[in-house]
């Protein structure tokens, strides 16, 4: 059995079959939630924004036109919902790192530690750089789709991705060096084994 394309389901929603939106919700809830959570670092806000996206789909379903790629359309709505939210509540515009795991210099396998450092390096990026990496790497949008989403040229998308990667590398390297230093410090503070018992 093949799955119905998103576009066909959305046309059904547009023509009044609201219950079909449940299938699209199941397909997009987690990617959208991750888009928001990795962008804002706030779980509650991310869940609110996902709900807002689906409310907007219901409200503006008549504006969906046959032939429009649904993925690009829903991310356009998702971006607008976030922009509108931050316009209304400016105070929350900063990144809230409630979802970041602590980076421990010890007790962690190297790969796990690298992933955690990478997560931190990503969060240190300016929002527009973080967003473009999330869109192409996690949401798997094609560069053409990102260009139309951001309203820029295809080459601009390539340049922005490369600049974001460059900055990510610098952040990552800095964090990795910091963690190595912490490790070295921690190792230096450990007293020699059995030292206290020496007479």
């Amino acid at each position, binding site marked *: 059995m093949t799955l119905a394309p998103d576009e066909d389901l959305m046309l059904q929603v*547009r*023509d*009044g079959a*609201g*219950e079909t*939106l*449940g299938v699209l*919700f199941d397909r997009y*809830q*987690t990617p959208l*939630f*991750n888009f928001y*959570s*990795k962008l804002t670092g706030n*779980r509650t806000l*991310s*869940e*609110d924004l*996902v*709900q807002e996206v*689906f*409310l907007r789909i*219901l*409200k503006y379903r*008549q504006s969906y036109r046959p032939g429009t790629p649904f993925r690009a359309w829903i991310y356009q709505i998702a971006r607008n919902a976030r922009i509108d939210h931050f316009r*209304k*509540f400016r105070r929350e515009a900063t990144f809230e790192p409630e*979802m970041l795991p602590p980076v421990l210099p010890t007790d962690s396998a190297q*790969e796990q530690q*690298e*992933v955690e450092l*990478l*997560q931190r390096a*990503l969060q240190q990026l300016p929002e527009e750089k973080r967003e473009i*990496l999330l869109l*192409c*790497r*996690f949401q798997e949008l*094609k*560069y053409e789709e990102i260009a139309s989403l951001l309203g820029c040229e295809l080459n601009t*998308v*390539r*340049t922005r*991705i*490369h600049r974001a*990667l*460059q900055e*990510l*590398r610098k952040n*990552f*390297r800095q964090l990795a060096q910091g963690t190595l230093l912490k490790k070295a410090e921690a190792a230096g503070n450990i007293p020699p084994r059995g030292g206290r018992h020496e007479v």
Partner: protein
Amino acid sequence: MKCEPISELLPDYLQGSLSAEQRHTVEAHLEQCADCCEEAALWKKLSLLPVDQPSPESRERFEALLQAYQAGRSNQPKGGSEWRKRFASWNIFHWLRSPLGAAAWSAAVLIIGIFAGLQIANSKSSSQEISVLRDELTSTKQLVVLSMLQQQSASARLEGVTWSTREQQLDPPVLSALLHTLRYDQSVDVRLAALDALSRHGRQPQVHKGVLDSLQQDQSPLVQVALIDLMLEWRDRDAAHRLQELEQTPNLNPTVRQRVEWAKSKLN
């Protein structure tokens, strides 16, 4: 080899959309350049970042939203699907063929004709006449909106509301008609569209008050939620009081109640 030419190819290399020859060029560079190699490695590692899972309540909230939507739809008059389809396939040419469209089109042609005639007859006072004609054209458009808002068919009323959004300034009678539509139209879609149209004119006190007063009257959860959002956007002074009143409404839809709580948290 310098990084500059390679860095232009790197994003496409990472997406796997380069030709074999270009791919070899990039790979040869990556073997020599530690920075570019590290960037490519980080790109791959990005896929290892954990996927965050939304809470199970998220699905429940969506279900409640959907139920609210279905409840709103069932309040609509029968035969709605027909006009919905009509509206979906509506375009300017369909509209121009309709009797109302033909009337508006004729009026526009007449005004353009008068304008051209006056241009030829007296080119000196043209700027004054242009402004008079522009005013006339605006009034004609607004008359069309007023007439469409009174149509039997919901799609015609929806078109009327859409037309009203094309004007920056609206005359008081058009604003009153839109407020009337927001308050009394049977179709949820038309009321939502009227709300969107009115949201552009919130600085006018009578619109601000008229729109927010409808919060207590509207029974559609979708419209109620949109009104709550608008109230926050407008930073209404009485927002807390209005929300409290709404919260006390018996049998308030759960989604609306949730939205009220969310709005209250934003106010604090």
